[in-house]
């Protein structure tokens, strides 16, 4: 009879069971002190809850940031706030974000991203100027244009007034229009944000434009 062995084993089993059921749980009423290692010592002290909760973006970033090998996508998606009074229209192959505003929707603002440098800063600024029958600028003049942060990088701000001929198949010309646009060109890609419309309307929506630009971020999930 192996009864003795059997009881030994039973006792061992019971011990194992107790081991599993009560782990090394901590005292729920006190905090525990710990030293921070060199890489942990720095913190980012931010002013507002808005920043702390990453609310320059609409969607909360999630832990899914590090993609596993199986996934991985091309163009990341954008997150942004829609300014008051602006109406979002479906984008197109060229336009990632597309808004209209004004009483009859005569104002428009879109964001387009292109792979590659998109033809370079000078060509693009002058292309826009050309649509308003404005003289081309030299490279130095363009370098001196004001900058605005777009995706946390300095983007060139272009403002032009004049008769606007949008092109793209249309032969119409709109008088007394204004363009307010941003161009960000790097070897990684080019981003254009372009707002056009009647001068007064664009002027009135200048803040909304800035607000939209500031809210733009790349979705992390």
């Amino acid at each position, binding site marked *: 009879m192996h009864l003795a062995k059997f009881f030994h084993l039973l006792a061992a089993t019971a011990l194992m069971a107790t081991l599993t059921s009560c782990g090394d749980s901590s005292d729920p009423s006190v905090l525990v002190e710990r030293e921070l290692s060199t890489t942990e010592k720095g*913190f980012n002290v931010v002013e507002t809850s808005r920043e702390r909760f990453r609310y320059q973006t609409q969607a*909360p970033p999630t832990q899914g940031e590090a993609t596993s090998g199986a996934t991985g996508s091309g163009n990341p998606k954008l997150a942004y706030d829609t300014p008051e009074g602006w109406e979002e229209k479906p984008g197109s192959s060229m336009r990632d974000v597309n808004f209209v505003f004004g009483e009859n929707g005569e104002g428009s603002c879109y964001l387009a991203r292109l792979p590659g440098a998109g033809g370079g800063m000078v060509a693009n600024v002058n292309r826009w100027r050309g649509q308003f029958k404005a003289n081309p600028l030299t490279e130095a003049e363009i370098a001196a244009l004001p900058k605005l942060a777009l995706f946390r990088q300095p983007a060139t701000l272009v403002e032009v007034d004049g008769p606007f001929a949008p092109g793209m198949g249309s032969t119409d010309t709109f008088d007394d229009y204004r363009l307010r646009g941003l161009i960000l060109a790097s070897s990684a890609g080019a981003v254009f944000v372009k707002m056009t419309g009647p001068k007064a309307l664009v002027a009135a929506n200048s803040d909304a434009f800035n607000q939209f630009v500031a809210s733009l971020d790349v979705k992390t999930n």
Partner: protein
Amino acid sequence: MAKNSIDWSPGNWPKLLYQFFTSFKLATTVLFLMLLVTLFGTLDQVDNGLHKAKEIYFHSWFINETMGSLPVILPGGMLLMLILFVNMTLGAIVKVRKRWRGAGLLISHFGMLLLLAGGFITNQFATDDYIALYPGMSSSKVESYREWQLEVMPLSKDGQAEKAWLYPSDVLDTVRPDEQRTIQTEALPFDVVINGYSKNAMPIPTSAPMAASVTGKEIDGFKLSPQKPSTEAEQNLPGAYVEFRPKNGADPIEGILWAGSYYFDPREKPMPFTFEVGDQLYGALLAKKSRPLPFEVRLDEFIFERHPGVTTPRNYESRITRIEEGQPDKPVEIKMNEPMRYEGYTFFQESFGPAGSNPGDDMYSQFAVAKNPADQWPLWALVINGIGLGIHFIIMLVSYSSRARKKRSATEATS
């Protein structure tokens, strides 16, 4: 055929128990129940995700669930494996008749016992964390995938801290969303009060339309909205309402803590909730539970390639250097299927980021870091088991074919 009557007298109980625990019936039943648990635990992952299904079905003693409208009441995976362990030890090792014919099976059961024991040790003692680094960065700690702890630290004006006081994840996890818990610390001039902790939450600005339906208190333009826990437990971002009550009687300071303020990208720094008590600046934060490593790891280079023209990754690998007491070791390569094993830790190439990166971008590399005392046990178990079963089937095949040959020659002789 007389029905065998069972002697139920107390003196006979050990014998009955022994019979019960050594029986084939028990083995068959337990194996069958394990099959059911495995099936339900697999199907449940569709709705509840791997982590939760694991807790409910496999790491549990009893299961009492409903799947769809089907009630699932079963012994849990832990209990079954424990019974199986006992049953196998007593039935297949202790009780079994020792004879040459059974040698193979005896050996293979030893292998299975080793496998189960290894599983138990892994479950109890192994740790499973990660570390993410950009090239040039180094670190000597690993972080948990899903365990969060509350940390409070005195901060200098430029955001530096030397020490932190933490509320460990195992006890933080027990705070319910509607529970208030006060925690004292002698070293700090205030008490920490948690006013509800949600395992997955999102701060909603009160200006947002959906904020109206959120019941929580508004603090600094935000309310904390509890969310349904994600099926991927790693995706959960917990949140808590906290209150700091200065011991000098000054007004309490309230705040919302959210795991999203911790960092996602290894170059980011955590963004604590900050407040002043006396003249000292303090920060409070939900941070991932971290464990120190006995050595430092520096990422030298990360290589990422895709198959031409498609998004399937072909290869990603990291070149790292271990640094011990300031002395760099020689560089090591970690890639898929080729982990680095060192001082009981195993570093695996797990993934990379940020999301949407392409070959050539500035990317970080993420390693899973496991420490498992039973790391190699399954291999030994397999070897033992394979040998055992191999011996057994050879014995069986030989006896079968010799029987078949005899039988065939017998029939040929008769015909």
